[in-house]
């Protein structure tokens, strides 16, 4: 299949793997964080780690939009969904995320009208079809999805639709990366930059990571060869003593991002003073809310939400996993109390979550898998 197979070529992968191995200094350990959950998924889905030397470790970062939603926000959304006039719409990933009082699936089984959509425009379509109901879109995601939420609000405003609003949980990636860089227990050698986020914000906003923290970052695409090439570029920078921002995903990511998308977001949304991230705590200026001008489309203003902060379960170490301090399997409850069927922490919920990806795909050390699958 065109535009897919050429990025999954095993021969090219072997050639790249040899060049990666050649760049690794003997005895040196390398730790790279893939910021984006989509990358985590690619790594496990294709078994990419089989191509890496044992000394290269990939650390799964905080870029899974579902994984960073705190429990209290899930409860708030369920509270909105329980209003009899409301149809709550959500991406499928969000449905199983546990709040303090259960997930969307549980709320749905208890009678709330919660529906899965693939796009906020589908939610707007529902609002047009059900003028007697109020349709709320559970808006989640980084800069990748914020523009589509913003464009939907702009369209709803232009059409004069009054029974539609968004429960805005959009977050921004730079403050999260900064929080990780400032974390005292951090040992990272470089970053694989989030490709989809960068299609919107560009590569320029990462320059401080190289300039101020001296860490290389390569904006990476989502096919397995994209990631291998990006790891090669990171190792090359380290071997040459450079720390720069490079763009491997140039076929999609312009250096300055997408100005149309950025304008739409700026028109509809503004930065919140602070926002709670699951596992990372409160991070200032790290999330978006709907501007006063579009207050009519803001579910937080239209409905009173409890807004109760629910502490993460004590046994859950999602925070350490999100910061890359712990590997998923090092968490106390990984795989026993916390599994994809019964997630305690959000990292176990979404297929992009570091723990779920590891549980589903990566549950074997490389040597054991090689033994078992040898032909």
């Amino acid at each position: 299949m065109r535009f897919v197979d050429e990025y999954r070529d095993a021969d090219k992968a072997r050639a790249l793997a040899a060049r990666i191995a050649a760049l690794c200094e003997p005895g040196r350990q390398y730790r790279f964080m893939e910021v984006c959950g989509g990358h985590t998924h690619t790594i496990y889905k294709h078994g990419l780690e089989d191509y890496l030397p044992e000394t290269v470790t990939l650390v799964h970062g905080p870029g899974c939009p579902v994984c960073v939603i705190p429990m209290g926000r899930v409860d708030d959304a369920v509270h909105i969904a329980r209003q009899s006039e409301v149809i709550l719409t959500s991406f499928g990933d969000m449905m199983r995320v546990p709040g303090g009082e259960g997930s969307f699936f549980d709320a749905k089984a208890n009678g709330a009208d919660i529906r899965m959509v693939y796009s906020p425009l589908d939610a707007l379509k529902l609002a047009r079809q059900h003028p007697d109901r109020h349709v709320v879109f559970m808006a989640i995601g980084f800069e990748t999805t914020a523009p589509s939420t913003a464009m939907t609000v702009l369209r709803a405003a232009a059409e004069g639709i009054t029974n539609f609003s968004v429960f805005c949980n959009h977050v921004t990636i730079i403050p999260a990366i900064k929080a990780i860089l400032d974390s005292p227990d951090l040992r990272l050698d470089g970053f694989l930059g989030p490709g989809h986020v960068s299609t919107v914000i560009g590569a320029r906003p990462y320059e401080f990571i190289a300039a101020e923290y001296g860490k290389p970052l390569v904006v990476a695409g989502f096919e397995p060869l994209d990631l291998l090439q990006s790891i090669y570029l990171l190792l090359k920078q380290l071997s040459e003593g450079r720390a720069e921002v490079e763009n491997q995903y140039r076929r999609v990511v312009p250096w300055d991002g997408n100005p149309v998308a950025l304008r739409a977001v700026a028109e509809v949304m503004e930065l919140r003073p602070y926002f709670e991230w699951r596992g990372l705590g409160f991070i200032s200026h790290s999330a978006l809310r709907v501007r006063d001008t579009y207050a009519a489309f803001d579910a937080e203003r239209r409905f009173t939400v409890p807004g109760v902060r629910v502490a993460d379960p004590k046994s859950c170490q999602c925070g350490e996993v999100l910061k890359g301090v712990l590997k998923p399997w090092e968490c106390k409850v990984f795989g026993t109390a916390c599994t994809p069927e019964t997630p305690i922490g959000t990292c176990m919920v979404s297929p992009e979550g570091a723990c779920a990806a590891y549980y589903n795909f990566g549950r074997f050390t490389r040597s054991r898998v090689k033994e078992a699958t040898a032909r």
Partner: protein
Amino acid sequence: MNPRLPQLDREQQVLHRIERARQRAARIREDRITLAHGSGGKASRTLVEAVFLAAFGNPLLEPLEDGAECTVDGARLAFTTDSYVVSPLFFPGGDIGDLAVNGTVNDLAVTGARPLHLSASFILEEGFEVEALTRIAASMRAAADAAGVQIVTGDTKVVQRGKADGCYITTAGVGLLDRPVRLGVVHARPGDAILVSGPIGEHGVTIMLARGELDIHAELASDTAPVHGLVAHLLDRTTGVRAMRDATRGGVATILNEIATAAGVGVVVDEDAIPVRTEVRGACELLGIDPLYVACEGRIVVVVDGAEADTALAALREHPLGEAAAIVGRVTDDQPGMVLLNTGFGGTRVVDLLVGDPLPRIC
């Protein structure tokens, strides 16, 4: 000395702990049924084990095969039932009617039985069009004729508007096990080969696109078909078949996991060997779904003695429904209970049962 070794040991311990946890008896944690309980994945299995197996448990049910084998006065009968709630009722390549006949015929066929008689029960919603019901009945008749079975008994119930979605059908079937074979996934053993009879995932993707909620268009039709002829041809040509399953809800991945769990063996499959049509692959790529988990309605997974693999493959390919059959993997004694995939990219990963449902009401 490798500084990673102590770490690997700890990781191994965690992985062992997980395997032990996976093997514990099922327990339902939810207070209410959620859509995940109908997915064919882990939640379905938990429901079946914790509620139905606990209540009905008996030696005929416990193997959890597609059909049970009952012996009556020396005659071996296969008996099975299935309900159909597919939405939409009519889709490219078929409708709920032929699906309901083919599904039950196939559940009988993969036990090695010759399908004989079917029952059909209808739950109809007040307001449902008689014309649509007539069309469904006609396609059931056509499917039954094609499969050489008769629908010999049935029932009809009507519920108030809004209490059902148009038309639900339950069929049951009996067949005669007149071959001297005993098939079952529990018989899989290391060295066996695993085959699929054709491209996978076409039914699931067709239904998804037929709902019209996604603006994706593709030339695709459901693969719904009765496989009894294909199965009979295969069993005529080779004695090495150990088990067959039709890969419906939960897809090929779910069947592979059932083989690994039931027989206590490892299963290794090669992604590149699995036949998938480009249209299905493309839709799955766009939607972030793995075709391995997408339902088929006319494809079977066959476990066959490794020495007979080529004979079985040739036999499948001789039949029109098996033209694109392929050997996709093998049974091993490593990693019992696990399914591993050699990815097309050259890596490896675990293929587990799905937790939730990528797509409810597929059949």
